[in-house]
């Protein structure tokens, strides 16, 4: 199992994503100017502030050369996980539905949150059971998930709402408390909280590891 973690100018969580992925497989760093994925079985678009969040969070990173490869990889069923800014990038690139808006509080919020696993049948959650709760940190200012109501209905009907903030844990005003969604096929998942920061009990929780383990299960 080989994970590729993309680094854009302004990424800041690629090292933690590498360290997390290394616990369940091989992990390599991919530079945003690269034109190949180095044979990765799964690609992680990490958190941070790619291109300084200029224009809109995630809007410019999708024009990096490697994103052409990621789009091709995703269309062929390749596993892609977008975390925080990576989630924003995948939405802007059209690989995931919806958009991320500024938190209702307009504040950057950093806190541990409980997430309900809504769909344990995606490539990135199948090491979980439906109804499992994961304790994972969230840290962002632009994480209010939004899509038009008919789209939200469709996402729920298709099982594309993968993770929700558990009751009392939502803080950003996300539509229907959505913390993470998938594409229709379930191979591309994006979420605002940071599973890569929750892979060792030393830092409070190892629940985030389950997402990486899920991808490894698929690849085997």
């Amino acid at each position, binding site marked *: 199992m080989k994970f590729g973690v993309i680094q854009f100018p302004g990424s800041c969580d690629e090292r933690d994503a590498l360290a997390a992925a290394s616990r369940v497989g091989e992990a390599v760093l991919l530079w945003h100017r690269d034109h190949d994925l180095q044979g990765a079985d799964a690609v992680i678009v990490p958190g941070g502030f790619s291109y300084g969040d200029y*224009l*809109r969070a995630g809007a410019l990173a999708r024009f990096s050369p490697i994103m052409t490869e990621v789009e091709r990889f995703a269309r062929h069923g390749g596993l892609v996980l977008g975390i925080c800014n990576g989630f924003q990038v995948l939405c802007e690139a059209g690989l995931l539905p*919806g*958009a991320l*808006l500024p*938190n*209702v509080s307009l504040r950057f919020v950093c806190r541990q949150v409980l997430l309900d696993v809504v769909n344990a049948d995606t490539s990135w959650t199948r090491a979980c059971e439906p109804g499992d709760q994961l304790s994972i940190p969230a840290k962002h200012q632009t994480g209010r998930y939004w899509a038009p109501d008919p789209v939200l209905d469709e996402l729920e009907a298709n099982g594309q709402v993968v993770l929700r903030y558990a009751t009392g844990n939502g803080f950003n005003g996300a539509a229907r408390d959505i913390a993470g969604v998938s594409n229709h096929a379930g191979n591309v998942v994006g979420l605002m909280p940071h599973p890569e920061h929750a892979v060792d009990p030393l830092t409070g929780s190892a629940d985030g590891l389950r997402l990486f383990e899920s991808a490894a299960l698929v690849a085997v």
Partner: protein
Amino acid sequence: MRARVLIRPKAGILDPQGQAVERALPALGFDGVRNVHVGRLVELDVEDPGQLPAMCEQLLANPLIEDYEIHGGEIHGAAARS
């Protein structure tokens, strides 16, 4: 040609920035202000203003969450999409 693109949150989408400004104005004694929305202004020189709508759709705005207005001399004053 010099063009200006005004981008604002789509109507109906909660705009906390606009709300914060709306709440702040009365504190300075400016009463009777409603429906404040905060957006962005993009100014640019373009050789072919006919390309502006596509630029907006593909990059300058996110049409899912934002409306835009194009202002420039040669494109019939203003073109708007909402």
